[in-house]
Structure formats: C-alpha cells, structure tokens
C-alpha cells in the first residue's frame, strides 16, 4: 500500500537550533497594554513569543488554542484582565471557566504541564508580563519541541485527502 512520503525540511530549517515557538493571545485593554508597558520600561524577554491581539480575552475560543498547537506551536499563552477589571465587564469570566476546562482536556491529550499558560495581566503589570514570558519560554524550552504536525505525520495522518490542512502557507 502507498506509504506516506514527505519531503525533508530544508537544510536551513534543520541546521538552526530549535527555538520554542509560542503564540500568546492578549486582550487589547489590559494584557496588551501591560506588554506595551514592559516595552516602555525597556524590560527584556526572549523573542520567542508572538502576540496575537483580540479586543477581549472572552474572544479566545478554545479552538484557537487547539489550532495553534495543531499548527506547530510549542506553547500557547492566554492573557486577559484580572477578574473584575474586564473592559467589557465580564468577558474574562468566560475565559476564567473555559481555560481550566481546556487545560484539563489538553492534559488528557498528553500535552505536558507548562505548555499552555493562562494568566491575568493588568495594564500596569509590565514587569509581570516580562517575567511571565521569560518563565514560559524557559519552561517550554526545557520540555522540548512539541511539533504536533510532525507527530501526526509519523502516525500516518494526513496522507489522505485532508492533507491541504497541513500544507505550508505564506
């Protein structure tokens, strides 16, 4: 029967040492401003965390998190306003319930503790954000690459008609 074939990642990608790739979903009003404050204070953290902004942490669908891991993120962060401080009153209350439930589900799917991080960061907490990023990058680095797409390829998933989901996009 047809064996799954795959092209080796190009030499440049394999030659460079692995760096944790982390996606962080931040709410615009608190945590994004908190991240900005880390910048205005010139605090330093490693460039492994890419920030995706949404207006409220309530917008963060658990499917965005599973999508990120499925696409190859080694870690995912979700940050929002502290309870009681949400710009939209109670958007973060939903986050508060969804994320722990998602965490338990991800643990059931074998995701190690420390890859999925959910924290509240206020607009004034630039230091907290910088410290959090440094901590998460190091803990993900210690856990090693997750490479979910690679894992599924090894299991023979995606050699059928669903393979368009795993193609590279620009």
């Amino acid at each position, binding site marked *: *029967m047809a064996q799954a074939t795959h092209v080796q990642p190009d030499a440049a990608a394999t030659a460079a040492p692995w760096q944790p790739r982390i996606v962080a979903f931040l709410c615009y009003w608190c945590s994004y401003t908190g991240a900005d404050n880390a910048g205005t204070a010139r605090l330093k953290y490693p460039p492994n965390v890419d920030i995706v902004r949404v207006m409220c942490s309530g917008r963060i*669908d*658990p*499917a965005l*998190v*599973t*999508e990120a*891991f*499925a696409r190859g993120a080694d870690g995912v962060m979700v940050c929002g306003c502290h*309870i009681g401080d949400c710009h939209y009153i109670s958007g973060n*209350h*939903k*986050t*508060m*319930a*969804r*994320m*722990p*439930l*998602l965490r*338990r*589900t*991800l643990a*059931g*799917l*074998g*995701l190690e503790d420390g890859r999925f991080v959910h924290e509240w960061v206020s607009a004034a907490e630039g230091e907290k954000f910088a410290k959090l990023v440094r901590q998460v990058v190091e803990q993900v680095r210690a856990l090693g690459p*997750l490479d*979910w797409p690679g*894992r*599924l390829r*090894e*299991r*023979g*998933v*995606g*050699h*059928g*008609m*669903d393979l368009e989901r795993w193609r590279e996009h620009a």
Partner: protein
Amino acid sequence: MTTNGKLKIGMYWAASCGGCDISLLEIGPHLLELIAAADVVFWPCAADFKYKDVAAYPDGFIDVCFFNGGVRNSEQEQVARLLRAKSKTLAAYGACACDGGIPALANLRTVDEIFASSYLDNPSIDNPGRVLPQTTFATELGDLEIPRFYPHVLRLADVVEVDYQLPGCPPQADRVWEALQAVVAGALPARNSAVKVACTDKSVCDECLREKRLEKIAAFKRPHLAIPEAGWCLLEQGFVCNGAATRSGCGAKCPSVNLPCRGCYGATGDVADQGAAFIGALGSLLEAETEDRARELIDQVVDPVGTFYRFTLASSDLKGRR
C-alpha cells in the same frame, strides 16, 4: 453482472461495530421498496461477496456505495480505495467513517499499549509466550499476510475523496430512508465532502423538546446518580449534554429519555473540532464569579476528552494523544 436499469448500491464495514449495517436494515418495510429500485452489489455484512468480485467491476460501476467504520488497518484503506474507484458516489456512513467514532478513541493510546492490552496483559488472556501478531508468516504453502495495524484511526475522508457524509451513531432510520429516496430519485444535493445528508442544519437543542430557562449551571450531575427534572434543559440542570455542539437529525431521542446527548452526530455547521467548540460554550454557562468557584465546578466534569470528543476525535485539531 447484468444491467437491468436498477441502481447499484453497496455497503462496506471497516473498523465498525455493525450498528450502521443494522441501521440500514432498520428502514424496515422500506427495504422492499429499496430492493425494488436498487441491486445490492456489495455488502459483506449481509451476504457473501469477495473482494475479487468488486475488483472485477468496471470503474464507477457502483452508483452509490456507503462506507461505515473507521480506517484502522491496511485492508480497510485498500478497500476504501477500491470502492472509491468502483463507485460513482461514495458516502461516509455513520460517525466512525465521518469523524472516527468510538474506534478513534483508540488514538489516545499507542499501538504498543493497545497490543499489550489485547494480547498480553489482560486478565482474560492466556498467552504465556507473549506472542504478538505478525503481519507476514511463511508457510510451506506460501506467505500468509494479515492487514497491517495502523498507528492511528483515520476517517474515510483521510484516505479517499468522499462525496457525502451521513452522520450519527448510527444514522437514524427515518433520515436514512429520506436520503435513500433522494438517491433513488437522483436528487441528492450537489457533491461536496462537507455536505452532510440524512440530518438537519441545526443543533440537537433545536429538535429537543426540553425548555431552556437561560439559567447558568450551578453544579454538575451524573445521569446515573440523579434524576433529571422533566421538561427542562439537561445542560442547565448540570448534566453534561453535548446537544448545543451536536448536529441534529436524530430527533433528540436521547434527551427525551433523560439521557444527555453524547454528541454522536458530530459537530454543527462545518466546525472541525467539536470538543473545542463545546468547551467554549460550556465555559460560558457556568455560574461562577471567582476563579476558585469556576475550578470547583470544572473539577466536577469527569473525563473531558471522552465526554467532548467521544465520537469526533479523528476530526478534531489534535486528533489523538501525544
């Protein structure tokens, strides 16, 4: 085979429990109408057919072939490809073929763990030699081969192009008969593997006769430990009912007999990850003002993976355990 103007239909069972084949029989007296309009040219569950017979058919010979069950081994993939070539229309029938179904829960285990449980370490196994199946074995009469066991349960759409999906575990007979009538009349909707037939475009909540009071969930309950109040939404009462994230067409039969929906018709709309969709919804419905309270409630949900992905793990974003 003679050509007599009748439709040629087929049904194959892969990694399956047999329930889908039985569900086809459940159309009951309509079976007579069916066989008046169509010849069954391949249905291993019901009668004796050989693969070589199917291989001998011209391509596109089968007008409509229903494939139920997931793809767990090389034989099932081979037959899927064979049937794709020999069928004008190939439909994924039932939750396993559409989304992986119950067999896809095996994706939470490795092949080694599955073999150990099936052949080595079960209390009812007597295998002192710790013998495991081999895929080839040489004999004097030649090599014996058995299908290779895949490391992952796949959906039909993962291996071949699929024209239609009939969701459900199993698809309900009255809807199946509607779909078959459309087949006979040549009136199926335009081909597209995302098109689901023998179902509706709504959620189970829409068909369910229980009433929503728009209250938040104050505590979770298990259906074997508490009796639901009649007439009131099961989820609001605290029974984990996946209905809001599940496609309807089943008539909401389970909630009508006090059983919370288990999600067997798969995701609504064209949502890929049913579990994540439901987590987003469920997290929004808890009565919790503080993090401690939210965690307290969430800890009452038993086995989130099994509850939210019971039938659709192979369709989800992560598809299985690491």
